[in-house]
């Protein structure tokens, strides 16, 4: 079973079209193995990206270097999935 320990989901907000293009360029950086949960649309719409643990530091440095604002939407994806699984199991056990 694939797990997502240490994966974070970042919510990124572009200030302008230039930053939007820089975020879009992340799609082509296959070495980061990013998973775009919400793709690049326009300046007013956030972009959500699941970032594997091994890429977190590089991606954050990359964003900060370009002065692109982001927040951590999901701190630890696996913890959230574990909770989801736990809820499913306990719901299934309920009479």
């Amino acid at each position, binding site marked *: *079973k*694939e797990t*997502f320990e240490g994966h974070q*989901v970042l*919510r990124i907000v572009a200030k302008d079209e230039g930053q939007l293009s820089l975020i879009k360029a992340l799609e082509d950086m*296959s070495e980061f193995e990013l*998973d*775009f*949960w*919400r*793709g*690049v*649309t326009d300046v007013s*719409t*956030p972009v*959500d990206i*699941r970032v594997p643990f091994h890429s977190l530091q590089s991606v954050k440095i990359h964003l900060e270097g370009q002065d692109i604002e982001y927040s951590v*939407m*999901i701190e630890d*994806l696996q913890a*959230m*999935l574990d909770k*989801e699984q736990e*809820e*499913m199991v306990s*719901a*299934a056990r*309920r009479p």
Partner: protein
Amino acid sequence: EPRNSDSFDFANYHPINEIYAFQDMLVAENPNLVSKIVIGQSYQGRDLNVLKFSTGGTNRPAIWIDTGIHSREWVTQASGTWFAKKIVTEYGRDPALTAILDKMDIFLEIVTNPDGYYYTHNSNRMWRKTRKPNSGSNCVGVDPNRNWDAGFGGPGASGNPCSETYRGPRAHSESEVKSIVDFVKSHRNFKAFISIHSYSQMLLYPYGYTRTPVKDQAELHSLAKKAITDLASLYGTRYRYGSIINTIYQASGGTIDWTYNQGIKYSYTFELRDTGRYGFVLPANQIIPTAKETWLALMAIMDHTFKNPY
């Protein structure tokens, strides 16, 4: 296990066997209203089940609703399950739904990508695509929302099997897509087609593959506005609306572009709730609120379709 569809736990997520069992229960309990049609098999051999809600007649004008074509969007399959029960309980009670079902049929495919859904429960919660292997690549699956014959292969879809938006080797290469294509073509009387995704709170109409506006743009736009206004009336959830290409981004090979080009005017796609906190991992306690508010928008579209025959 629930003994009947009343005791099914709509406020929690369920594996595919439980959803399939729920569908069978609903059919058994409502033989004069609900039937199950198997429109094909998935790549791994699972039935592609469609619930047909019909009060009689032959090949009546019909409304299509599908959920879960992207398997990791769990709130959509859960909402679809809730919609199925809602249709059964509201028929004969809600005058608008009753009027619709007295003249039209509703088809609901709750688990549109069953292999993917099974995989999200057992191997990879974040899986989005189908599960068919791609020859010459180690990467599995096709994005079934890029596999339709509408601008297929154009910008806004990937030719790389390892991409989440891989379009597939050819249009309708995925049996999950081809089965719907064949069913819609053979039915020939669909008047509305609504494909439900999550998340980002949007209600969209064609096109995604071209900037050319659809000829019914004004009507689709105004109906979308009415639908999202009704949706917001319950909990204040705010949706954006517009054509796919203008509201999100260019996407070729999309479901509702194909259905619109087949002559199904009221073709829409939803993106359900975005709380800004959970993404695809929307907690189960949000299933019913999400389904309830979405139902209001669905009713707006279905009612308009019923009242504006073409």
